[in-house]
């Protein structure tokens, strides 16, 4: 069984659905607390969405100092999968595990809506079950989601193919293509080795057809498959209980 640690920071709030999404894909999910100093033999780590430390000062700025970040760094350096979703992405950027920063949306308001994103890379542990260039519609919910970095960094990201997800429009005839003004419409990036991925949209929120779409399911399926330990029974998307 693929063991996935879902990190709870004070103020995280997407942990239950993240665990359910992992389990629906055939993995085993468990919580680790931000003060823990080990990942309890996890094969992969997910930093879930939410408002760690209330987003005070800057989203992710305080959480990055949590004790759990040390084992996460080691895990990442060893090439094992690490995924940051929304606030988790913000924390990974603040921690320097991913490049750039996520700043206030260009519209200056919190934005909750579905977006269309294109899968730009399918050789990461979190996107391998998608087709290259596939466009999926999943929700965003963030106030600080505008990806920003120096031009040189952006050029390097493009050159190295490290843009994993890009906003593409339109998700509605009258909606802007790039919902938060992210530079180069970037919705998700990875580290040079491709094992650390961060994205602003929430695949875990739309990962079962009972809610209208399972567009996000394959993020978790990719992970479980890439670790090569799929449990054939639970892959049948049995509805998982709340962990």
């Amino acid at each position: 069984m693929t063991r996935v640690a879902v990190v709870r920071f004070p103020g995280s709030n997407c942990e239950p659905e993240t665990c359910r999404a992992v389990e629906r894909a055939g993995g085993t999910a468990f919580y680790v607390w931000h003060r823990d100093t080990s990942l309890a033999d996890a094969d992969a780590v997910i930093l879930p969405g939410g408002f760690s430390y209330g987003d005070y000062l800057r989203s992710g700025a305080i959480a990055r100092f949590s004790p759990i970040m040390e084992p996460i760094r080691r895990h990442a350096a060893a090439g094992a999968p690490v995924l940051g979703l929304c606030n988790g992405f913000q924390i990974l950027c603040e921690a320097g595990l991913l490049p750039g920063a996520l700043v206030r949306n260009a519209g200056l308001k919190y934005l909750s809506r579905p977006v269309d994103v294109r899968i730009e890379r399918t050789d990461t542990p979190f996107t391998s079950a998608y087709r290259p260039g596939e466009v999926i519609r999943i929700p965003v919910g963030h106030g600080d989601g505008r990806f920003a970095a120096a031009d040189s960094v952006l050029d390097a990201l493009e050159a190295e193919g490290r843009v994993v997800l890009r906003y593409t429009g339109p998700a509605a005839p009258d909606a802007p293509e790039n919902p938060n003004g992210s530079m180069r419409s970037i919705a998700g990036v990875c580290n040079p080795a491709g094992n650390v991925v961060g994205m602003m949209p929430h695949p875990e929120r739309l990962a079962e057809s009972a809610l209208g779409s399972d567009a996000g399911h394959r993020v978790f399926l990719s992970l479980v498959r890439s670790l090569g330990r799929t449990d054939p029974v639970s892959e049948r998307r049995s509805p998982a209980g709340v962990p």
Partner: protein
Amino acid sequence: MTNVTLGIEAHPFPGERAVTPAVVREHNLNDREYAEIVAMLRRAPTLTELGIFSALWSEHCSYKHTRPVLRTFPTTGPQVIQGPGENAGVLRLLDGWAVAFKIESHNHPSAVEPYQGAATGVGGILRDVFTMGARPVAVLNSLRLGPLDDARNRYLFAGIVKGVGDYGNCVGIPTLGGEVAFAPGYSGNPLVNAMCVGLLREKDLMRARAHGVGNVLLTMGARTGRDGIHGASFASEELSEKSEARRPQVQVGDPFTEKLLLEATLELIESGLTVGIQDMGAAGLTSSSAEMAARGGVGVELDTSLVPTREPGMSPYEIMLSESQERMLVVAEPHRVEAIQAVCAKWELTATPVGRVTEDGLFRVVHEGVVVAAIPGEKLIDGCPVYHPEAVEPAAVGARRRASPAGAPRADPAGALLLLLDDPSVASKRWVYEQYDSTVQAETVLGPGGDAGVLRVPGTGFGLALSVDCNQRYVALDPYEGGKAAVAEAARNVACTGAVPLGITDCLNFGNPDRPEVFFQFREACRGIADACRAFGTPVTGGNVSLYNESPTGAIDPTPTVGMVGLLRDVGKRVPSHFRAPGDPIVLLGTSRGHLGGSSYWEVVHDFVGGAPPPVQLEAEAALQRLLADAADQGLLRSAHDCSDGGLAVALAECCIGEPYATAPLGAQVNLGNEPGLAPEGVLYAEDAGRVVVTTPPGSARGLCTLAARHGVPAEPVGTVGESNGLLEIHTRNDHLTYRWTVPELRRIYFDALPRRMGGESDRSMEGR
């Protein structure tokens, strides 16, 4: 001066102000109430006691003007686990699950400081629900503002929406619905009503009672500051220049601490470590401790010098009356205190013993060894005089009901639809609900933008449908019919998804009850709510009264907001609001009478607010609700949307425009108006109650009509869904006219109305953080 006569002794805290007649008046206690207090204590109260009485005997806490009327609500039913009187009402669902829900106003604080006022309103209602052991799974909000051409109203609107959003978003509770309306009476007096819905296992229900003499009281969560001192009595007076000056310190919300408090509270309840738990809402420590004691039939003693404060030198008066947010009061057996503190520490919170349960029935406050308050606890809660204000309908209201518009309309019947879709009260509220997280928790089945929000109960196949509604125009013109209409619309919205309405919570926003016309509105609106709830079998499980919603410019429109919860047995069968596919037959359910009284059409196109609002036929509404649930269950519905503001034409336009993120809106061809003598305005824009536009799968229209006949609901196939980006064509049979609109244009107007008006307002999003 020591206050000893024959009563129980209490002493002024050194340095505090003497209780003079002026000070009594400042506390909003009238002569009769003060005399009751002196008689009860058999001496003059200390300042701390005066503050305690002032808080608990405010309308907000005592319901002294409204209790007799509220008693007339139906509150029982097989589904009711907990009716009014606790922090939230609780209804039974399936498989051992129950739903706790409640609505509350935060009008006055939001008028002063929109961002924090609205944010702390959400915080308060979340605590009311998790205090019961329920995990919050949805919030809804009902907002009323003055017209958006006024900069102050735009500022209030922007701040309120941001405040509601930031708080719920941060705690991680999806906002699944709400309503917003604009009318001149709300200028300077906005309404912010927030509803929270939580889920629990019936066996885990926690009631907020103190019992067990010797048990310990602990405060848990944030420190106590000077925030909102006298918020409860502030909320019970009219806004005036004077209240500006003696405005309490603004309460600032901290949703981050709230989230920790939520987790810690649920863990404490689940672990069985507590005897009782209650949030500190209005009047903070005073009301939480006094109410818990009264419910448990015991006394309490608090030592305010033990309460952790944010600032040094706070007096017992200030500590008792502080409305600092994100605090809870816990009652526990002494040997559990350490375990409770350990749970709190895990969530980075503190819990501090500050008092104990006593056997003498007294509400006693000690500070640094001085007894500063000693009041018979039961009388403190029940002793407040009850008032029966006079209720008279002014003749002018009756005249207004009989009137009809005089001048020429601002547009012909075709152009009227464009004006209506551009009216901020009718237009899409996407500008609002995009600022609210509606998908966190990943149980959202139908998000905002339709008739009701629907969520799934985790780990099950069933769900809840939720809606908040009130048409204040109807209530102003005819409070009884308006009260009925609020319940009927909420129930209809819930029923449109296929759910069965289960029960309501209400938030009764009115003006000053001492004015007979206001109390008339109150009494009659409540009678309407009660009658409708009886007819639908949806008991009132709780709610909130907000009076004195008046500013120097006048009273608000009476606004009894109804929050409805419905049960959807199979979320797989939920019915969305909007048209789904070209070729689907369109069926109109209900009876069209061309009733334009009280309509949006008259308001927007004739600048005339008047006429009698459409009467609600309660039996017909109930039959319609049953039909919708049956039809959904049998798979006969592809979409269902009720007619409300703007009547049938607006409802059809909304069905065509589609869900907010639809890639392409759909057209429709519709034939209307068999009723002889109906003018096109009446056919298009009448607001007859009890009507729903539905679509069926191709070939099922007849089946639906047969089912409708069995339920006694008139049903008429009226047309067909058209092509994407097509036309909405409405043919009125009486006069052989066909009205045509291009749906993409309707869509643009409908979605652009609020952003166009609020465009520049984002600057004030500097508010908050």
